[in-house]
């Protein structure tokens, strides 16, 4: 039941040639491939075109890796949600809300980082639970539930923040955390790269493990593939989906904290639009908005491509007004290629 939605590795029976061809076909049909190739193309383009202008320098690399890591961290749980057949549009404004929920106690109540993080986690659990319950129990489309949540969070964050401190931005977070033992985990660099890179890698590995090697992963595929069948087979759809919404909100908290400690500012408007960047990365990486398909590794390449395009422009003489047009074009192209590959792979299996 669950196997049918997974990318199949087809191994030929007899002669070497056919096994070799099958291996190539299997590699071609990996959902990550489109994203990998597009990322490579984008990298080569900027390296050739803007390599001598600083794209290949440490700062250049660090900056696109950082932008990519923030998108990539959100894209992982979004991929799981997409595989399970759900959407989360509230993840961007959740970042703004989480930034304030963590920064406010640090700056105004002198909380240590661990306690402030717990406040962010509590918010994520609350938001994720509400998103999940409304989607599963009241049976409203998650697109609408999280669209509503997006506006609710934006309004609440703005209103409550202005009520509490009279301004929309909180400064001086790092100064308030001087000497905090947890600070190096969320701020600064390790081996010349931003710490967010390591969080990103960790989360890609974690979500890939869950999706491919655990029972939960099977459940995620099952609930996104054939919902009725999944229920009959005893998949705990409600708690599974609530858990996934919480995971997405938690990722938003993590990115909010990383972003806030990078620029040393928490802003109610932080993260606006990040939900679409996350979904773009996931879809370029092979996730299907109809559920049942997706790969955190693919999403990682999608995010990396997004980061390279958004930062690569700085190193060219191309006017960056073209940025969104190019990102949008890449998205549509990737979706078309993914679909063609999927169709070909189904035909190849003689179905």
């Amino acid at each position, binding site marked *: 039941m669950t196997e049918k939605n997974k990318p199949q590795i087809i191994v030929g029976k007899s002669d070497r040639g056919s096994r070799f061809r099958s291996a190539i076909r299997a590699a071609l049909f990996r959902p990550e491939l489109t994203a990998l190739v597009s990322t490579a193309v984008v990298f080569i383009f900027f390296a050739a075109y803007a390599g001598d202008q600083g794209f290949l320098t440490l700062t250049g690399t660090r900056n696109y890796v950082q932008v990519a890591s923030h998108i990539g961290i959100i894209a992982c749980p979004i991929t799981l949600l997409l595989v399970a057949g759900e959407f989360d549009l509230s993840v961007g404004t959740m970042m703004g809300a989480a930034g304030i929920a963590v920064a406010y106690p640090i700056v105004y109540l002198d909380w240590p980082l661990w306690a402030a993080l717990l406040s962010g986690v509590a918010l994520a659990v609350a938001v994720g639970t509400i998103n999940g319950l409304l989607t599963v129990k009241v049976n409203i489309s998650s697109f609408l539930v999280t669209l509503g949540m997006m506006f609710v969070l934006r309004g609440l964050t703005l209103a409550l923040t202005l009520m509490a401190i009279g301004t929309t931005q909180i400064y001086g977070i790092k100064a308030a955390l001087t000497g905090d033992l947890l600070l190096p985990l969320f701020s600064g660099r390790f081996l010349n790269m931003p710490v967010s890179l390591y969080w990103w890698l960790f989360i890609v590995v974690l979500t890939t493990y869950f999706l491919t090697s655990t029972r939960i992963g099977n459940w995620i595929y099952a609930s996104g593939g054939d919902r009725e069948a999944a229920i009959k087979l005893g998949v705990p759809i409600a708690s599974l989906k609530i858990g996934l919404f919480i995971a997405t909100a938690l990722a938003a908290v993590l990115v909010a904290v990383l972003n806030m400690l990078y620029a040393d500012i928490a802003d109610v408007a932080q993260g606006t639009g990040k939900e679409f960047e996350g979904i773009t990365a996931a879809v370029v990486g092979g996730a299907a908005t109809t559920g049942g398909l997706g790969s955190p590794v693919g999403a990682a390449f999608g995010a990396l491509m997004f980061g390279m395009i958004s930062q690569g422009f*700085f190193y060219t003489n191309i006017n960056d007004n073209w940025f969104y047009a190019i990102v949008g074009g890449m998205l549509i192209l990737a979706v078309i290629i993914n679909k063609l590959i999927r169709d070909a792979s189904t035909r190849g299996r003689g179905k």
Partner: protein
Amino acid sequence: MNYLVKLKRVAVVTAMALAVGIPSAAIAQEQTRLRIVFVSQSGPGNPFYGPILKGFEQAGMDLNIETIFRGQQGNLLGSAAETLTAIENAIATNPDGLVISNAYPEVLNATIKSATDAGIPVVLTNAGFGEAETTGALAFVGCNETELGQLAGELLLKVGATNALVVTAPPGIPLIDDRVRGFTEAFAPSSTSVVEVPIEALGDATRLVNTTLAALEKDPTIDAVFSIGSCCGPAMVTVREELGARADSMHFVTIDLGAPVLQALADKKIDFAIDQQQYLEGYIPVLMIAQYLRYGLKPVETFYPTGPAVISAENAQKVMDLAAQNIR
């Protein structure tokens, strides 16, 4: 260009550079074109930026310098973190000079300082009044934002307004906060109420108009409207039209020009607009950096004011032609 002329110019530049003792690297770069990058939290999506960008590009043409603008796409106002990354990127391209709109000094100052420490000449423009010394920038080109607000308040007092509505964004953007504070201080003898429009709605004329109309509806004693910038000027013209007869006894003042605001000034629909001649905010930084790189010359004062100037029905007509050319 004529080769001989070019050669001659290089020779002259070299001679002058040697005379004032500029490192030879600057001269070597001059044989290629100087490259100046302008980083901002805003961009062409904001009509106010039209003249700034025109001035920036015109200076590049006049001075034979490559000018590259890097703003934020899509939104009127990029976040502090986005602007910070943009500045880091700009520094990594190893430009000959940087023009920076320093809208978030608390976040951006350290990175701007690292650029000036590394020997990249920086000029702050449009946003960043009072931050030139801290960041090591050659100068700040623009206005004292508090002064812009003060002037607006004084003008409204002079025409006899007693209760003003301030149309602004929620507090948090230093530049806007300064304008509002200046206004409130200057207008203090009379009362001020404030309507805050969410940042993302500042580019949405319909929401601006309706929010303002609702605030005016609630308090019939309001007899003046002060809007904080280019975001809101054109919307205030619509507000005035929607108000009908009540508007005749009201006064409108806004900051920054644009074709619709100028037309409204000429038609006496807006009483005053405070102008900061933002074309200069694009042009002058390039000029300053060029003079510094080529001859080691720099301004003595670190504040190069481009305003404020008051535009009203009397002088609006004069600048309208320039607005059509995207210079005002």
